[in-house]
């Protein structure tokens, strides 16, 4: 509990809304560039690296709540996955994995695989095996056509999309940590 409290300094409270805005804003840029990615967890991973697991988990959950309140209500179903992404980012940072680009990339791939496995049952059992987004659903359809069931097809879609997405996310965060002034890097 003390560890939990010590993370939530005023500075962390200030950082979290910015991190949520980064999640939403970068996702918006990705859509402008018409890239087949989400990049909706850069802020969450950043809080994980800059502060710690609890605040990163909270950033993930709040971010998903904000997206469902203002953009797309179904997003809330994936709140738990967003929290785990933040938590994992903090654990990788604690282990020193965010200091070199290739370890950061590996951390991103591992996080992506975990995210894919956790997201698939939600799509399969809550949303009938679809995500309501044309790109990912086309991928799901091709896995179903290849003979997989709903869970398998969503798992396949996740394994294709998530590790690459999280790899780029973690590399961007690594690049930001390089450019960040020392005074902002001190961890709580």
């Amino acid at each position: 509990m003390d560890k939990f409290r010590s993370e939530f300094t005023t500075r962390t409270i200030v950082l979290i809304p910015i991190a949520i805005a980064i999640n939403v804003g970068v996702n918006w840029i990705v859509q402008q560039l018409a890239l087949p990615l989400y990049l909706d967890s850069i802020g969450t991973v950043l809080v994980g690296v800059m502060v710690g697991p609890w605040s990163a988990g909270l950033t993930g959950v709040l971010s998903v709540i904000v997206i469902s309140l203002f953009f797309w209500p179904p997003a809330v179903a994936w709140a738990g996955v967003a929290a785990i992404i933040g938590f994992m980012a903090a654990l990788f940072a604690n282990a020193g994995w965010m200091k070199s680009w290739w370890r950061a990339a590996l951390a991103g791939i591992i996080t992506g695989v975990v995210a894919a496995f956790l997201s698939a049952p939600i799509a399969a059992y809550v949303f009938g095996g679809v995500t309501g987004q044309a790109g990912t659903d086309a991928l799901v359809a091709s896995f179903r056509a290849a003979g997989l069931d709903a869970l398998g097809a969503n798992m396949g879609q996740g394994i294709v999309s998530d590790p690459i997405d999280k790899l780029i996310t973690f590399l961007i965060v690594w690049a930001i940590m390089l450019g960040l002034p020392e005074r902002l890097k001190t961890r709580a």
Partner: protein
Amino acid sequence: MAQLSLYRPGSSPLHKLNPLTKLAVMACCLGAAFGFPNPYWVVGFYLLFTLSLAAWGGMLKPFLVQNAKLILPFFLSLFIIQGFFYGGATVLFPLGPFSYTLEGVEVAFGFTVRILQAIAGMTLFIFSTRPDHLMLALQKHGFPHQAMYLVVTTMQIIPQFQNKALAILEAQQARGLETQGNLIVRLKALFPMVVPMILGSLIDIDERAIALESRAFSKPGPKTSLIEIPDSETQKILRWCLVAAGLLLVVWRAL
């Protein structure tokens, strides 16, 4: 200041309910969406309960438009994917090696109406509740006051951030950064856009924190508020009933 919000101002009885009561209505709507064993009952609940509440809130038309906009992609994906790949004996029509089955359509229908009812329950809440009022009501019930800052600030920062993103996009294009073309070209444009934008938004966190601290942000003890959120005993009882109904529905289906 530009604020992100889907809240539709109004003075209907629905708007005047305590935000927590509306949260309980949402819980009941979600319970109905996933709890009724038969999808036709979900349709009935949607028509009789959810739409009546929207009409009571004086927002039936925008409510229906929003529902349609959100459910359409799910509707399309479900009826295509489940229709062709769920399998079943009753073939409606074949297409190449695949066949569109009645069983698949039934499954797609079930999921579509459940998702629709869930989205509708959330939209009911989002359209009729100011987020800061929700946070105030939660604060009265022991939520930390920092949560209020988180939500309200996020609503203000996101539009600012989008403006900044647009400015950086245009500035980098003016310098000759290619943002159109094939996938590799667009992917290369990502880093020079995203990294400066994020760095720029992180620079002033210390100033923001100091500004809050100089206004006694982390001082413990009760805070006074300009806005009073009305509540009543009736609403308290109603809230428990709604949440219990939602839970019972889910338990019913699970059994």
